[in-house]
Structures are given as structure tokens and as C-alpha cells.
């Protein structure tokens, strides 16, 4: 147990505000609620023992920690308790698999047509449902068939004194390389020399599935690659808000990683929209946007809100003429990373996301925006509306899509 998180339970005054906001305990009695499972149950977990399996139904969305008026690190306590639980019981094969998107990506990319076919094949999905526990209707992404890293190796970024390092994450690398190309394009359009060092997974899915050892190993490798840049004062930009939060906060707070490398990287990590908005506040952002006359509902992922920076995407998209962005009210799409892929949690996840799906559908728009790839896939699955990272609207707004890009995000 990492002490600072655990000791925050002392601040709990049992007000149950966290429970009124938890999207998951609202839809399932299998999760007793964040107060119950967090600061309350933690007093009963002596010497790193987690007798309560219901902690596994916490999705890790982090909304509880955000709304707690007393500063209890509820979601973090739950994460640690879950890791303890799985350490005692042994992590099932399914969780080990889906927690390693970079491994799956490396395996699936060379055989992507076959892999994609298999992932959509009803009979094989039913088999996976029964044998592995991955729900047959879960929104699994399609392999792009080419990795972003390969494109990056061949791409020459125009040299400039303004440097930025891009941490693209597994989502871009294996499933949505076009998003990565757009991130690079927008940064270069604004005069940045974009460097893409060797990099692998940040370890977040391993953390949320309770395998702290492996998660730490991944994070340490990643920050070892990024730290030299951070120390030179080069900002590190991340387009996936979940991976960004891992580097900014969770690797230290939840996994307890204390390395100097991590500290340097955390301080230098910026969410992509955060980075652009800060540029805009300094008067450095190019605002030569052409009109994009459409309505786009925007959903800020739970972990984006965990950054504590407001919703910079809204301010950025407001710069594009004729673009009408609707800020969606609903809290959570329900996917919570790998949570909604699991057989026993899929229905819960869809019930949680129902309000968001309905709001997206009722907006009448044919495009939605959201900063996290897993949330986008869930929104497409639940609302039937195509969802893009805000960068895609900026890319089009700048007119950088004039030569047709190599496919938009994977469907």
C-alpha cells in the first residue's frame, strides 16, 4: 500500500457526495459505491489484504475523487485495493491480454485483415465471450494495418527552434495512426519541430487491471526514453487524455513510482489541447481557420477532467468559424478503458453510457468529438455516431486535409 493515498481516507466525513456522482453504482448493485469501497472499506483492509471482491466493479473513472469536498483520493484507494485483490487471487488471462494493447498491436498489425475479420466474426466473438470473458458485443477497435511509428520514422519534421516531443500511445500507434499524423500536422503548422522518440505503452491498462508490477515496468521504460527531452525543457505532448494523466499523476500516486525520470516527465507533460490553448494565450497559436459549418457535440472524458485544466478543447474549437460545439452534460461513456470490454461488465458499461449516447443522438449531429480513443469507440458503438479527436477538427479547420489524409480514424 502506498501510504499517502491510503492516509487520505482520514479526510472522509461520510457525506456520500461521491456516491451521488458515481455513474457505476447508480446502474448496478454489484458496486456498493465509492465511499463504501474506498475510504470506508479501506479501514478494514489491514496489512494489504482486500477481502472484498466488489472493489473490482469500480471502473477507475475518478469522478469520485474530483467531487469529494474533503480531498479523499477515493478512486486511487480503490485502484490500490483492486491491485491487492488481484495479487491475492491471480490475474485472469483475459485481463492480462487486454491490458497489453501494445503487445496485441504488434501481433495484430502484420495480419490486420485477418485479425480484423476475426474480431468482427460473430462465431469467434462468441467463443471469446465464453472462453476468455470478452463480451461478444464489446467495441473492440480495428487494427489499422500500419503502425504510426513506421510513418513517424519516415516523416521529416521541419527543423525549428521550437521543439516538442510527441507521446502518441498505443491507440494512435496501432488503431488510429491518422490521428497521430494530424497531431503532428497541427503542431508543425504552428512552427514546431516534432520529435517522436522510441516509446511503448504507458502501462495504464495494466494498472487498472491490477498488475502494478508490470505497469511500473512499462512506465519506467517509457519515462527513461522521454526524460532526457524533459530535462532539456522540451514539452511532451500527449493526445490521449488517459495516457497523459498516467504520466502527469497516476504513475506516481497510484503505482508509487518515485523515479527522477518520472518526476521530470510529469512536469513536462501536456495534454494536446492544453498545449495549444496555452500557445493561444501567449498569442502564438495560428488562428487561420476556415469555416467548418457543423454542429459537434463534445464529451470530455472522465480522465480528461482529472487533469484539472478545464476543457481546453472547447476554447480551441470556438476559434473555428461557424463550428457549433455543444458541451455534453453526461459524465461518463462507461467504457473506462478495458472495463466495458469484459463479459461481466459490458451491460453495466452500456447502462452508464446510455445518457451520453442519447444526448449525442438527440443532438442530430453526425460527428462527435472526444479526447480519448476508447471513449470514442464506445460512443460510436453506443450512439452510432462517428467520433473524432478534437485535433481532427483543427486539422480540417487549418485546411491541412486538402491532400486527402490516409484514412480517418478506424471504424
Amino acid at each position, binding site marked *: 500500500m502506498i501510504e499517502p493515498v491510503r492516509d487520505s481516507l482520514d479526510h472522509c466525513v*461520510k457525506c456520500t457526495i461521491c456516491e451521488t456522482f458515481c455513474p457505476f453504482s447508480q446502474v448496478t448493485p454489484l458496486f456498493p459505491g465509492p465511499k463504501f469501497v474506498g475510504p470506508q472499506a479501506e*479501514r478494514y*483492509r489491514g496489512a494489504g489484504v482486500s*477481502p*472484498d471482491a*466488489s472493489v473490482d466493479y469500480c471502473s477507475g473513472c475518478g469522478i469520485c475523487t474530483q467531487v469529494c469536498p*474533503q480531498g479523499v483520493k477515493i478512486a486511487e484507494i480503490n485502484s490500490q485495493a483492486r491491485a491487492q485483490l488481484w495479487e491475492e487471487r491471480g490475474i485472469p488471462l483475459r485481463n492480462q491480454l487486454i491490458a497489453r494493447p501494445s503487445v496485441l498491436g504488434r501481433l495484430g498489425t502484420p495480419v490486420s485483415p485477418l485479425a480484423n475479420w476475426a474480431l468482427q466474426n460473430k462465431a469467434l466473438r462468441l467463443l471469446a465471450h465464453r472462453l476468455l470473458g470478452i463480451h461478444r458485443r464489446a467495441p473492440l477497435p480495428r487494427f489499422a494495418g500500419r503502425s504510426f511509428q513506421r510513418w513517424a520514422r519516415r516523416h521529416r519534421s521541419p527543423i525549428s527552434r521550437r521543439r516538442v516531443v510527441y507521446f502518441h500511445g498505443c491507440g494512435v500507434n496501432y488503431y488510429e495512426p491518422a490521428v497521430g499524423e494530424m497531431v503532428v500536422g497541427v503542431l508543425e503548422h504552428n512552427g514546431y519541430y516534432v520529435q517522436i522518440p522510441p516509446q511503448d505503452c504507458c502501462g495504464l491498462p495494466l494498472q487498472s487491471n491490477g498488475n502494478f508490477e508490470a505497469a511500473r515496468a512499462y512506465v519506467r521504460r517509457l519515462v527513461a526514453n522521454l526524460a532526457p527531452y524533459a530535462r532539456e525543457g522540451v514539452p511532451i505532448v500527449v493526445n490521449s487524455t488517459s495516457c497523459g494523466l498516467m504520466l502527469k499523476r497516476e504513475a506516481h500516486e497510484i503505482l508509487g513510482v518515485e523515479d527522477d525520470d518520472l518526476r521530470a516527465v510529469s512536469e513536462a507533460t501536456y495534454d494536446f489541447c492544453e498545449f495549444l490553448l496555452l500557445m493561444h494565450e501567449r498569442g502564438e497559436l495560428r488562428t487561420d481557420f476556415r469555416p467548418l459549418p457543423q454542429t459537434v457535440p463534445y464529451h470530455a472524458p472522465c480522465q480528461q477532467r482529472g487533469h484539472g485544466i478545464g476543457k481546453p478543447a472547447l476554447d480551441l474549437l470556438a476559434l473555428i468559424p461557424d463550428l457549433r460545439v455543444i458541451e455534453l452534460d453526461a459524465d461518463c461513456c462507461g467504457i473506462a478503458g478495458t472495463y466495458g470490454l469484459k463479459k461481466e461488465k459490458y451491460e453495466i458499461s452500456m447502462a452508464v453510457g446510455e445518457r451520453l449516447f442519447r444526448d449525442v443522438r438527440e443532438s442530430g449531429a453526425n460527428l462527435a468529438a472526444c479526447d480519448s480513443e476508447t471513449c470514442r469507440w464506445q460512443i460510436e458503438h453506443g450512439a452510432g455516431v462517428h467520433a473524432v479527436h478534437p485535433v481532427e477538427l483543427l486539422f480540417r479547420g487549418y485546411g491541412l486535409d486538402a491532400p486527402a489524409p490516409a484514412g480517418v480514424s478506424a471504424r
Partner: protein
Amino acid sequence: MIGGGSTGAGVARDAAMRGLKTVLVERKDLADGTTGRFHGLMHSGGRYAVKDPDAAKECIAENLILRRTASDCIEDTGGLFVTTPWDDPAFGDSFVVGCEATGIPVEEIAVSEALRREPRLDPGISRAFTVPDAALDPWKLVWACARSAQEHGAQILLYHRVVDLERDGQRVTGALVRNELTGEELQIHADVVVNAAGAWAGQVAELAGCRVSVLPGKGIMIAMNHRLVNTVVNRCKMPADGDILVPIRTVCVIGTTDVRVADPDELEVTQSEIDEMLDEGEKLVPGFREARALRVWAGARPLFSQEEVADTREVSRSHALLDHRDRDGVEGIVTITGGKTTTFRLMAQAAVDAACAQLGIERPCRTHEEPLPDSEDGSFYVLGSRLRAREPVPQSEEIICECELITRQRLEEAMERRRTGNLDDIRRTLRLGMGPCQGGFCIYRATGILHAVERLDHHAANVALLSFLQERWKGAHPILYGDQLRQARLDDWIFQGLLGVQHLPT
């Protein structure tokens, strides 16, 4: 027998098991006295290994017996004696010698290992030793003894105060007791009276015309909101104030002081004692003063002394059995006093042996081998048990006290059984209101349930609610700061602002 603490309950059990017709009278609830106010440490004897070897030997012998016979009341936390930067490292050697000489299993471990087990300990500790200390739940213990006594035919009369001892010349023949709840008086005839009234033993003995000098040694204790340590931690030095930190159930308790007082019913908690405990806590666990303190209370040790002493720490912690036939020429009464909860069974045995001698019979004691109710399978209490019990089907029952995970069903059962219209009694039985919110969320609910289950009229229910709040306040207000102050403000808002309990008719 007189007194419902651990000794008294132990005597009632032992006597009833030996076939004696037994009745126990206690002026309040079981374990309302010293037994319910200690830190919950089941001694290995290490604390006395150097200073009081006789007490140490008794402790380790009883420790092993209780592990076999009262396992359900015990959490096997183990114990550590640590040498902090404020302690003399050389004492550790005398400590080891003392333990070995008194039969206490002791082992020196690496400091790194101690810190691995207990990450909150001061990283500056220089030595660490393990001993078989454990955490003992006094209410479970006392209630188990009482149930066992009842199963063997004893009668337990709570809220019955001894008004006088009946005498026939130089012979005690019984007691006059008053039921404090109804006012009714009762005459109890007995061949032998056992006085196990602990710190009040002197007051009881006086009713028989015997002078027993029991010096109440007040000690305060502070319960911290969560277990900063999961092992009993002792300072490796000569026993002094604030050198024990005990994990007991969901809290940990730091104690204690030792101040001679005149009246065991007048136990004041002073700010300087509190500051002393917090400072000593800080030496064991850096950041102690930022951690959340739930409440503070005082108990009175029954220190028996043949002569006057200046510092009550100088009095032996061994017990004393006084047969007044020999000592004062008064027949029919024996007093058992001194001692500590860890050795309660031995004390009870001594008392019942003496009682049997006065009755002219010889019956063997079996309390060292027969397990208490609920301890039959020998498995220790585990901290997570209430949490695990909520697990298989979450939310199939209403949880009324959420901090302590008490269901409506358990609450109703306890209320049906006790029928005293008093929520504090329920608190002692189930730990109602003993968690971080100190009743903020559960006491309105519990009062509503009490009103229904015990068919109270609104006055009685209101009195139960308000007196519970007053009782909680008693232990809370001297140590209210930081997180607990926030809680208290929220609780004030709930009870006074939202519910308006201050306006209820009583």
C-alpha cells in the same frame, strides 16, 4: 459476585462451570469500567520483562491460554518493540535477557524488515524485536464469558448497583442491590461474595467493614481513525507514558498516562496529557499529529498497594487476592483486584478457588482448557471479517452504521436482546457509532429503529438519542481538531441544523 468487568465475568463463568449457583451484579453495562477503557493490548509480557518479571511470566502464560480459549476475541497482530532515536539501544539487550528469562518468545529482526511490515514507523529506529503481543476485544471477551456463565446456569444482572452488603455478625450473607432502571430493590442471599469491582473494589469492601487500598491510576488513551500500524508497537525502554500503539478493530489506540486520582468515577482528561500522547505518537509514527484522532477517554487502573506509594507506576501489576476471613476476620467475602485484563482468567481462577475454600468444597477449574462461545474452532478474529461478510450478496441487507458495517438485522437483534432503551449499550455490543462519523449518520437511524423495536415513547427515544450524542461529545471535544473537527461540524449540522434535536421534548 460484584463487578461486570473482565474479572467479574470471568469469575461468573468459572464459578458457574464449577457448578456453583452464581449471580453477577454490575451497576452499569458489562465492561463499562476499566475493561472497556483500555487499549486492547493482550500482553506478551514483554513490557514487564525487565521491570516486573512476575507479572511478565503471568502474562505470557495467560496469553497462550487465551489464544486457545478466546481466539474469537483476539486478533493475532503480533507485537514489535522498537528502539526509537529517543531510546537507549542498549536496553534492547536487557529486554532480550528479560524475555528469555520469563519465557517470552522474542526475536530481533532487521530494521528494514520492521519498516517493511510497518511503513509508517519512524525510519530512524535502530533496533526491532518481535514478541507475541495481540489485540484483544474487551467487549467480545466479556460478553462471551457472560454467555458462557449463563449457559452454565448463572444469572447476569446489569444496571444493578450494590447498595449494601448484608451482614450477620462477622459474616457477609449477601447484598442489597437496586435496579437502576426501575428503582426496584432486591435482596440477594449468598454464601460467598466475590468482590471483583476493580478500581471500585475498595468502595465495595468498605461495605463489609474491610479496608482495601485500591489506588485508581488514571490513564488516557486516544483512538486514531485508522490503523497507522497493523502490529502492536511498543517502545523498547522502561515502561513510561504513551509508549504503546495498539491496532484494535478498525482503529489504533495510543496510550497511556498514569496519574493517581482519588475517585475512579471522576476521570478528567487534560490538554497536557493529550499533548503528551500526541507527541509520543509522533515519535513512533511521524505525521501522527496530522493523522485523524477520533476520541480520547480515560480509564482507572486498579492498583492495589499494601502501602503508600508516590508514583503509581511503582506498584506491581500483578493481581492481589484478599481473603477477608484471614485478613480482616470477616467471612463470606473475598476480593480480587489489581492485575490487568490479560490475566483476568487467572485472577478469576484465584478468586473462585478462594470462594470454594470458604465453601469447603474442591472443584477443579477448567477455564484454561474450555473455549469460550464462538471460540470453539480456535480461529482468530480477522480485521476484514465484517467487510467480507457484506460481500457475497452486496446490499441484500440495509447497512445502518456504515462506518462499522452494522446491518439493520444485527441492530434489531441486539436491541431485542438488551431492551435497555440505551444506545450506548448497543454501541458496546456492536460498535455502533464508533467509526469516523461518530454516529453522525447512524444515530438518527438507530434511534428510529430503537423507537420501533423497543416500543419506546417519543420521550424515551429522544433521551436515548441525546444522551448518546452527549456521550460521544464527552470523548470527542477534548481532542477536536483537523479532520475530526470537520466531521463534528457536519454532525452538528445534521443533528442541530437539519434535525433540530436540541428542540426535542425530553
